[in-house]
C-alpha cells in the first residue's frame, strides 16, 4: 500500500464517533428533504398502496437473496448477490417511505407510518408483494432463473414509471432502472452459462424455470389499485410483450425450452397484490420481523 492510500484509509478512523458504520434500524428518512406532496388529481391512498406493492416486492426478494449469503458457490457470487440485495433494499426503503408520506393526510392522526413500522409491524395479509418473491430457491439454478424473471419484469416496469405523474415515484424508478439493468444482465449470463453448459446443468436450469414459471403470470395481472392510478402507475398487462421478448432471447441463447407450466391458481380470486400469499411467506416474514418485534424501538 502506498503512503497516499494509507493516508486515505487513516482518515476514516480520525475522530470516529460511535454511530459511524453502525448500520441496523432507526435510519434517517431516506426521503429527507424531498418534496413528498401528492400531486393534484392523484389518489393518495391508491398511490400509497401502489408504493407498498413495489416496495414489498423489493423488500421480500431482498430478504430471500440475503438468506443465500454464505451459501453461494463462489465468493464472486456472494458479492454480486449481496449488492443486488442491497440495491433492492434501497429501493424498498424509498418506496415504503414514499407510501408513508402519501398515506399521512388520510390517517386519523395525520402522520404516516415510517419505513420500520411498515416493514416490521404489518402482518402477512397487509403485504402486497407478488408471490414470485416468496419461495426459498431450491438451488442456484432456481436463484438465477427467478432473478432473471424478476429483474426483467421490474426493469420493464420501472422504465415506464420514469414518466410517472408522481415525481417522487419517477425519481425512484429512474435510479432503479440503472441498478436493475445490472441485475438482469448478471442473471441472464448465469442462465445462459448453465443452460448452454453440461447436460447436468442444462437439466437443472430447465427444471428451475419450470418450477418458477407458475408464478410468472401474476406479474402481468391487472389490479384495482393500478387501475385507479392512470398516468401514475404502469399497466402490468402492457409489460408482457417486452418481458416475454427478453426472456425468449435469453432462453434461446441458453438452448432452453420456453417453460409452459400453467399459472398458479388464485385463492378465491385473490393473489399477492391482494394480501393472499403462499405458505413460505409466513416463515419468511417471521424471520424478517422477529428482532424488531421482540425489541420494539431498538436500534443496532
Amino acid at each position, binding site marked *: 500500500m502506498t503512503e497516499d492510500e494509507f493516508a486515505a484509509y487513516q482518515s476514516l478512523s480520525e475522530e470516529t464517533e460511535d454511530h459511524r458504520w453502525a448500520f441496523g434500524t432507526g435510519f434517517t428518512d431516506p426521503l429527507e428533504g424531498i418534496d413528498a406532496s401528492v400531486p393534484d388529481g392523484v389518489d393518495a391512498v391508491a398511490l400509497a398502496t401502489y408504493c407498498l406493492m413495489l416496495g414489498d416486492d423489493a423488500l421480500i426478494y431482498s430478504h430471500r437473496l440475503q438468506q443465500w449469503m454464505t451459501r453461494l458457490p463462489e465468493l464472486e457470487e456472494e*458479492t454480486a448477490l449481496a449488492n443486488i440485495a442491497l440495491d433492492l433494499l*434501497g429501493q424498498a426503503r424509498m418506496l415504503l417511505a414514499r407510501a408513508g408520506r402519501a398515506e399521512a393526510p388520510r390517517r386519523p392522526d395525520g402522520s404516516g407510518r415510517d419505513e420500520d413500522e411498515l416493514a416490521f409491524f404489518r402482518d402477512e395479509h397487509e403485504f402486497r408483494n407478488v408471490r414470485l418473491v416468496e419461495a426459498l430457491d431450491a438451488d442456484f439454478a432456481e436463484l438465477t432463473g427467478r432473478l432473471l424473471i424478476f429483474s426483467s419484469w421490474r426493469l420493464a416496469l420501472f422504465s415506464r414509471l420514469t414518466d410517472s405523474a408522481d415525481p417522487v415515484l419517477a425519481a425512484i424508478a429512474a435510479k432503479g432502472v440503472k441498478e436493475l439493468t445490472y441485475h438482469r444482465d448478471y442473471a441472464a449470463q448465469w442462465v445462459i452459462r448453465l443452460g448452454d453448459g453440461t447436460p447436468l446443468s442444462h437439466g437443472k436450469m430447465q427444471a428451475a424455470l419450470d418450477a418458477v414459471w407458475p408464478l410468472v403470470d401474476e406479474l402481468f395481472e391487472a389490479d384495482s389499485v393500478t387501475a385507479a392510478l392512470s398516468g401514475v402507475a404502469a399497466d402490468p398487462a402492457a409489460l408482457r410483450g417486452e418481458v416475454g421478448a*427478453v426472456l425468449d432471447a435469453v432462453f434461446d441463447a441458453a438452448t432452453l425450452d420456453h417453460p409452459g407450466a400453467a399459472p398458479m391458481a388464485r385463492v378465491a380470486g385473490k393473489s399477492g397484490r391482494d394480501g393472499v400469499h403462499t405458505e413460505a411467506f409466513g416463515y419468511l416474514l417471521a424471520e424478517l420481523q422477529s428482532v424488531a418485534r421482540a425489541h420494539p424501538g431498538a436500534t443496532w
Partner: protein
Amino acid sequence: MTRTEGSGSGADLAAAREIAAAVPDPELPMVTVADLGILRDVAAEDGRLVVTITPTYSGCPALREIAHDLRRRLGQAGFAEVTVRTALAPAWSSDWITAAGRRKLRAAGIAPPRPGPANQSPARGGPVPLTLTASRREPVACPRCGSRDTTQTAAFAATACKALFRCETCREPFEHVKEI
C-alpha cells in the same frame, strides 16, 4: 465563532462550498464528494446553510455517513445551522465523476468508469443492453500498467459501484467503477 447570521454572504458561502466539497467519500476516501458528483449544491436559505447531496445507488449506506460528516465539518467551521437534503432526480451517473476524481481513482489503483450508458437507457428511448454474447465494449485500461488487455472477473465487488478486473499483462487484480 458562529456564521449563522452571515451565512448568506458570498464569502461565507464560498467557504462553506470549499469545506463541503472536501468531504471524503467514506467508501472511496481517496476522492471527495465533489469529485464523485455526489455534492449537488451548497446554498443559503433564510440564514441557514442548505447542502444537497445525491445517492449513487439506491441502497448506498454511505449517504448517511456523508450527511453526518458534512454537518460535523461545517459545524466545526462555525456553520451552526446546516440542513442536508437528498436529491433523487436526475439520478446519479458515473459520468458526473470529475477529471480530478478519475485521476485520483486511477492513482489509487481503481479504474475509473468509461462513458456511461446514457444513450442506451430506456428512459431516453433506446433499448437496455443485455449481454448475450461476448462484450464488444471499449476495454477497461489497467490502472497500474495501462494495458488494455484486461478481463472482468466479477460484475460486482466490495461496494455497489464497482466491478472486479484482472490485468492480463501485469497480472494484478483491480477494481473498476461501473458505468451507470
